[in-house]
């Protein structure tokens, strides 16, 4: 059996009276992409900072590479690649200088850093911006540079906190592609996100976090199969014609009434649509889709992921 890269038992983080992370357990195995999915304020970033050995554990146990972050923080960070939520780049310096200075923090030899910068700039599709200042780069480019920088020490484990928040769809897909390549190279990734599509696309396994606690754990497929039906029928009613749940009785296994739409969870959307037509309700629009992690989150917490 392989030793877990990260193992947390009753891991807790408090800031004064506020409990950000409330006694969570999880393990991350080598080679997997592990996700923390949850809304803002769920405790994802606090957990990441503890794994990153920058934020002390309040209670419980945490080991990273079999080491204790409290006593071996520097040794742990030596093997980590960290992509924080904000791009903490030196905007007065060039792309090259940013990578170089970061590499020096790991005490890497200068010739080795130069070699790696060439490779990483290709990887990040920034080779032609090498001597440019960071400030005018686009959001997507800065994000890719931050990821390239985190790879300068060839980390065994990468921590990516909200890697695509604030990026346009095209930049997000470009970034997912880069992360996918890392996964194929065998780099272990831990990702936090509040985008269910990102979690579904990238993660082998994830935990759903809410209010500092882990609500569920599993692969995206297993979570969807375990907590929701295969298909969802989304209904929108004309304004002022809200339909009560009683009128929808028997149409689906489960009904969720949201402010802007109503969700019918069913194993057969076809059957549900046929039944719906029979009842002749005043429906403005109907969408059929497969269930996602968003539905799992809704089921578990009664709330949407993104407000």
């Amino acid at each position, binding site marked *: 059996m392989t030793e877990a890269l990260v193992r947390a038992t009753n891991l807790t983080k408090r*800031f004064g009276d506020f409990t950000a992370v409330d006694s969570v357990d999880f393990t991350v195995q080598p080679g997997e992409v592990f996700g923390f999915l949850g809304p803002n304020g769920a405790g994802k970033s606090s957990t990441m900072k503890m794994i*990153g050995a*920058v*934020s*002390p554990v309040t209670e419980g146990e945490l080991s990273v590479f079999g080491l204790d972050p409290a006593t071996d*923080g*520097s*040794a742990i*960070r*030596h093997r*980590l690649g*960290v992509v*924080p939520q*904000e791009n*903490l780049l*030196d*905007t*007065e*310096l060039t792309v090259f*200088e940013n990578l*170089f*200075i*970061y590499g*020096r*923090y*790991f*005490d890497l030899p200068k010739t080795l850093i130069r070699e790696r910068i060439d490779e990483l700039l290709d990887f990040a599709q920034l080779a032609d911006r090498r001597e440019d200042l960071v400030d005018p780069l686009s959001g997507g480019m800065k994000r890719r540079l931050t990821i390239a920088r985190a790879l300068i*020490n060839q980390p065994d484990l990468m921590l990516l906190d909200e890697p695509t928040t604030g990026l346009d769809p095209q930049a997000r897909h470009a970034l997912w592609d880069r992360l996918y390549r890392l996964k194929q190279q065998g780099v272990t990734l831990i990702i936090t996100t509040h985008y269910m599509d990102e979690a579904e696309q990238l993660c082998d396994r994830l935990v759903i976090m809410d209010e500092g606690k882990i609500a569920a754990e599993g692969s995206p497929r297993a979570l969807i199969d375990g907590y929701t039906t295969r298909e969802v029928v989304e209904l929108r009613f004309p304004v002022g014609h809200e339909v009560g749940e009683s009128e929808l009785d028997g149409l689906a296994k489960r009904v969720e009434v949201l402010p802007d739409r109503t969700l019918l969870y069913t194993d057969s959307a076809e059957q549900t649509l046929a039944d719906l037509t029979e009842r002749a309700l005043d429906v403005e629009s109907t969408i059929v889709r497969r269930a996602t992690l968003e539905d799992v989150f809704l089921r578990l917490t009664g709330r949407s992921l993104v407000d």
Partner: protein
Amino acid sequence: MAAPGSALVVERHARVYRRTWRGSVISTFLNPILYLLAMGLGLGSLVDDGGGSIQLDIPYLNFLAPGLLAAATMMTAAGESLYPVMAGMKWSKSYHDALATPISTRNLVAGHFGWVTVRILFTSVVFTGMMVAFGAIEIGTALLVIPPSVLGGLAFAGPVSAYAAQLENETGLAALFRFVITPLFLFSGTFYPIEVLPDWMEPIAFVTPLWHSVETTRAVALGIDTTWAPIFHYGVMVAFLLVGAVIADRFFHKRLVV
């Protein structure tokens, strides 16, 4: 031990400086020229001609220049310990960035002291060079005034960076210059011996490092005795340096490790 990481932090400061040096280098060269001209030669011609209550047997320029040198290293140390520290904590967050790597908060503090030493050494060398050019000091003696002036500057690095480390916004930065650094500059014996001040003001100079820095730097420059035994003057500066380093270490840790 913390040593290699701290050296890497100094290296980082130097690399950033290589790109941003222009503004500060101009003031490093220009300030001594302006002050030595205006105060040393301009005001000095009046002092030397007039009959003040304290008679100098040397030109005012020669009396003033070591005081200005001591004040210049203080200014550089304070400047380097305010805005860059605040930036590292809050604006560019370069400290947070470094802490994701093997670098520790102690490395950041030690690296800060290392970099401030480099900067005030540069200030001191340039300033004494100007003093030689103005004829305020001999070249041989000029080399000897560098150590006490650098020590005097370093005495400010700890307290000022600790102060900056806990600030929430930048109004506190200007306030320190307005209410601490500038008054010290004016009332710590830079321009005149503190004995001419009202008696109640003198003790304030005793407990602030600049007066001790001015005393020792001037004593070496003019070959005269210090007001107190040299060991007391140097002791106060060393105490500020060491206690300041410990306090800065605590404040950096408190702010950055949460």
